[in-house]
């Protein structure tokens, strides 16, 4: 019961964030890059600026909404990539077994052993700063994480009667994977993915914060927090509002993930990365 309530809170927060990211910039009707040095560091609710302005006189509301949009795009890209690749890799490893499984597992464990931020910094060192290496690095680590779990699920599924029956019935491995195993894996994979959406949002903002993610003038929430930190005494809102936006996004996905977990798979509740009951 408690989880359903939390799921609703998560969904509500998610809708707010989506609306802000998709429609927000149109709503404020201003440009995120236009500077106005006559009107810097204004607090929220000042004239014409819902959230005030930053140290260059740019409209904070527009920048926050565009920042949310950037976060959403990065999260969507990472999630799409890691979910598709993770499910495919995990299923192939689990079903085919043998040396294919061993080499995939070796590669996946290798990647998974490294902290996300470090991998992303190394990618930035190789490819230069920007959103692309961030998406690639976070996508890679999340793919490994999802593939690990999917492989485990497949191994468990392989022992079940209905898969054995399908084998006995002479169905091809591919058909069994697609028609019989995949629908059973989708639930746990979705639950896991929602957790990694949160990871992607935090990682992108952290990397943008240290200057390796989104490059100016494109606003990103992490970079806005970084810009605002030099003016904490004058106008802390330039740092606290984008930060709050990140927290809202992360909370929303985490709550949705917890709720989904309950719906799809009560067994997962005691998992390491899991949740209270």
């Amino acid at each position, binding site marked *: 019961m408690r989880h359903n309530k939390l799921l609703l809170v998560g969904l509500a927060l998610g809708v707010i964030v989506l609306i802000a990211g998709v429609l927000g910039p149109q709503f404020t009707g201003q440009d995120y890059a236009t500077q106005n040095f006559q009107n810097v560091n204004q607090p929220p609710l000042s004239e014409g600026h819902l959230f005030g302005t930053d140290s260059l006189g740019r409209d904070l509301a527009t920048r926050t909404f565009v920042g949310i949009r950037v976060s959403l795009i990065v999260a969507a890209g990472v999630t799409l990539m890691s979910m598709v690749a993770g499910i495919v890799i995990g299923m192939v490893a689990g079903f085919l077994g043998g040396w294919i499984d061993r080499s995939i597992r070796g590669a996946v464990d*290798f990647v998974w*052993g*490294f*902290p*996300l*931020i*470090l991998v992303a*910094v*190394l*990618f*930035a*060192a*190789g*490819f*230069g*700063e920007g959103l692309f290496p961030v998406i690639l690095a976070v996508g890679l680590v999340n793919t490994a994480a999802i593939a690990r779990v999917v492989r485990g699920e497949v191994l468990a599924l392989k022992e079940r009667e209905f898969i054995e029956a399908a084998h006995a019935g002479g169905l091809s491995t591919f058909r069994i994977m697609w028609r019989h195993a995949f629908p059973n894996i989708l639930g746990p994979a979705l639950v896991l993915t929602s957790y990694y959406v*949160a990871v992607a949002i*935090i990682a992108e*903002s*952290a990397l943008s*914060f*240290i*200057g*390796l993610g989104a490059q100016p003038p494109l606003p990103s929430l*992490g970079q806005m*927090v*970084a810009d*605002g*930190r030099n003016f*904490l*005494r004058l106008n*802390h809102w330039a*740092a*606290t509002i984008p*930060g709050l936006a*990140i*927290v809202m996004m*992360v*909370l929303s996905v*985490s709550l949705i993930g917890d709720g989904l977990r309950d719906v799809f798979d009560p067994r997962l509740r*005691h998992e*390491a*990365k*899991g*949740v*209270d*009951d």
Partner: protein
Amino acid sequence: MKRIAGRTLYTLLVLFLASVAVFYAIRLSGGDATAARLVASATAEDREAFRELLGLNEPIHQQYFTYMGRLLSGDLGVSLTNSSDIFKMLTFHGRNSLILGVTAFTLVFAVGIPLGILAARKRNTWVDGAVMTFSIGGMAVPNFWLALLAIWLFASVWGLLPSAGCCSPRQLIMPAFVLALEGIALTVRMTRSAMLENLESDHVRTLRAGGLSEARVVNKHVLRASFIPIISLMGLRIGQIVGYALVVETIFGWPGLGQVLVNAVLRRDYPVAQFFSLVLVAIVVAGNWAADIGYSLANPRLRKT
């Protein structure tokens, strides 16, 4: 024993592969190396000569072996931006990172485990609720934002703590707590759920039925069984702390390994980036190895294999 030997061999292999991968990644950006040292007006010939001087024109695998040879002999050259000796940078920044990392690591478990035990024993009371709310919050709040809130409140508004710098105990408080927070939140959850699982397990019920006092059941049996997942968490935490240190050190101006690496990447100071990414990768791999070994030793089911 066999398992430990196997994992150690595996770790060495991982270390080798990781060092090759990191080496290639950084050399990919080698084209920019000249931008870090030479002025913008340098001619194409100047740049070429500089690349030749750094040995960047040789085949990469040869560069790798040359580099490893120099690494072992302790001669890694100097930073392209400020000419400091790279090995000297390691001792200075490594010491600072060690102070911060060890403090954060200790905090993760010294705060996380007792809170988790408390929440499990007071299950479904307001104490449990408060601890779990803190835990969920701790995992949702990005650490760099928390860091800024802390700086704003404790340094700017209340003036209780210095906002940045190294390495007095007062300067250590904020970065250490920010670095530890996510780990504390995770440890609380793990400890609590491991405790709950064991408190309800058959063997604990048998112990209780046998007349053991509740305190003895909890302290001797439940805690010990609950430590197994926590120990493997400890090793993995080393890697996570290394990752987060990249961000936290940058925010608090803590001159550690993470800050050096981030700055080197931003300034395309590739010899520094090269070396310090290898150092951090080695620390992470060693942490994973320690997690594995600790897990094998703590888990009686694996001890004999």
